[in-house]
């Protein structure tokens, strides 16, 4: 029923037509221009209810006017859209070209980078090999050093223990001197004397290479004369041999190697130490 009414209702027809055109335009705008472009202003939209009742002729005139207006508008929009699309296309082409150029450049760069990387890798490999070799060497060296260090540590431990033992002995010997503060024997401070004897003993013991003295418990004796500077006056004189030549020699070398020996500045003390008897037990005592 309503359709029949529509046939005779020009106003409604015009309005419907106008609506259809608007809708079409709207759709064209959406799909051709895209969201990023600004939606053009296309005039006022008249709403059914508020449409004023007008005379037929006027209405047709107005509709036709409107049509022209709308057409003009659409062409304008289309034109602007085309121009925009063209610009877009050109921009796209430019972009593509740019991209292609960029791609080429990127490829070139990549190639260059690859080459550089290959060179770098090679360098790295060489460096790595060198590092490995170095590491291996270092490991071997380290092993050596560790072994030596271990021996040194063990030796130090033994020496420390011996030093402690000696110190204890000294303390006990020193006690009367400390109590009487200056216990003097024959004009000599025994505490000071023992201190220097200990220092001499330590210095020489460090240099005795016991490996050259076999494994048995042996002992040998030397006499030495010293200058106030701690240097030997003449050669050490062996008064008792270990009966192992290499051991006798090693001990003699140890004495010579220990020069200068630590000596007190006090002439009274020095006179007690200037002639010494050294008794060696390279493999300890039974």
């Amino acid at each position: 029923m309503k359709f029949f009414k529509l046939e005779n209702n020009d106003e409604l027809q015009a309005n419907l037509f106008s609506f259809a055109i608007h809708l079409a335009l709207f759709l064209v705008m959406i799909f051709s221009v895209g969201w990023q472009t600004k939606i053009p202003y296309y005039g006022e939209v008249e709403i059914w209810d508020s449409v004023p009742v007008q005379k037929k002729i006027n209405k047709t005139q107005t509709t036709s006017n409107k049509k022209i207006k709308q057409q003009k508008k659409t062409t304008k929009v289309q034109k602007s859209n085309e121009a925009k699309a063209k610009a877009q296309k050109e921009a796209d082409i430019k972009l593509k070209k740019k991209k292609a150029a960029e791609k080429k450049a990127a490829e070139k760069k990549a190639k260059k980078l690859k080459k550089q990387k290959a060179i770098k890798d090679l360098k790295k490999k060489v460096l790595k090999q060198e590092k490995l070799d170095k590491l291996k060497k270092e490991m071997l060296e380290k092993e050596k050093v560790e072994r030596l260090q271990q021996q040194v540590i063990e030796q130090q431990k033994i020496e420390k223990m011996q030093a402690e033992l000696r110190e204890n002995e000294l303390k006990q010997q020193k006690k009367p001197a400390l109590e009487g503060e200056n216990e003097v024997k024959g004009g000599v401070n025994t505490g000071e004397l023992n201190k220097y004897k200990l220092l001499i003993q330590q210095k020489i013991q460090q240099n005795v290479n016991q490996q050259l003295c076999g494994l048995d418990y042996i002992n040998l004796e030397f006499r030495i004369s010293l200058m106030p500077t701690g240097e030997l006056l003449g050669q050490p004189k062996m008064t008792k041999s270990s009966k192992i030549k290499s051991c006798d020699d090693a001990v003699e070398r140890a004495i010579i190697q220990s020069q200068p020996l630590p000596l007190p500045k006090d002439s009274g003390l020095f006179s007690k130490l200037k002639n010494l008897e050294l008794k060696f037990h390279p493999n300890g005592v039974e």
Partner: protein
Amino acid sequence: MNKFLQIIFAGFIFFSSSVLHALEVIEILGGKASQIPIAVMPFKSFGAQKAIGKINSVIKSDLSRSGLFYALDTRGVIAAPNSDKEVNFSQWKSLEAQFLIIGRIDFLKKEKVKVSWSLIDVYKQQTVLSGEYVGKEKQIRAIGHKVSDKVYERLTGSKGVFHTKIAFVEKYNNQKYKLNIADYDGYNITSLLDSKMPIISPKWSPDGKKIAYVSFEKEKPVIYIQEIATGKRKLLANFKGNNSAPAWSPDGKRLAIVLTYNTNSQIYLINADGSDVKRLIRSRSITTEPSWSPDGKEIYYTSNQGGGPQIYKFNLESSEVSRVTFEGKYNLYPSLSYDGKLLIYLTQDQGNFKVALQNLQSNQVLKLTKGPLDEAPVFAPNGHMVLFVYKDYGKTTKIGTVSINGLKIDPLPLGSRQVQEPAWGPIKN
């Protein structure tokens, strides 16, 4: 009475005065295991200038391998002296050298050389030993070893082993075996035997003329004795079961061997001509790897009689058995030093097989190597070094020496050869 008192008083005065004037005595116990710093200068050549190898490198390498010497770097030392009169002693002292070796090589006719050398004591500022050797040009390494021996003996009191030979087994082409003989430092290798079947346990006779070894060429282990000079060999033991682990008695007349005969591995004695076989130890446990004491009165061996493998000794006179190793749960492969004072063996320590050195007087044990897979340690004939097999970082098996102070481990320059089962020959006079 008064007189008596006077005498006592006078005696007292005399005694106290003698005490006052007595020498101060210092007792020095122990010492250090240090290396003697020695400088070995390049020997100067006279006559024809020929490249015959550097004799000073041989001497340097020998002395440092022993672990008792530290060969100083002499590069940059401008003044190479010709005699002890030319030596700038203060210069050598500042380098901390205790000894200096100098020498010259004169090229003679018929490709012969004369090597003259001197050992100079830097502290005493005098020559302590010198000598001369004449030999063929190609014997230059051997001459170097002889110089090293002389220097070693003079400074350590023990005979040098630098002019001795070693034997070892080389596996090649995967399944072939050679019994090789070389200088102690791995040079001058010659092959004594080539076999398609494995060869193990080579042992030098005390006179250094023969080698006993175990071969699998009869599809089971049997023992041969082979003469080195002629290559002639004879089958010593091919009894029922396995025949293995030969060990020469110090007089070279008998061998201890291991047979499985009727039971598990047991030690037997056999004459070097193959006669008179008799069982040595009656035990239900395994007894194997015999090694003679130098006096020939005891045999050290490995047995599992206490559970894990440990080293025991058997007295041939009293038939008494006593345990020798107590440290660790796994000790095997014993070998005694020439003087019978030291024992080396393999010990398992925290999962690693290491070479252990035991002082048989104090029973102190020192681990000479770090493992992880060390094998077959044998003493040098002077007891100052040990030859053993070890795996290095690249997992190749190497033969090397370790000094008994543990300060020096040195591989033999055998390249990529697959080597095993080393044996050290005696010192030849």
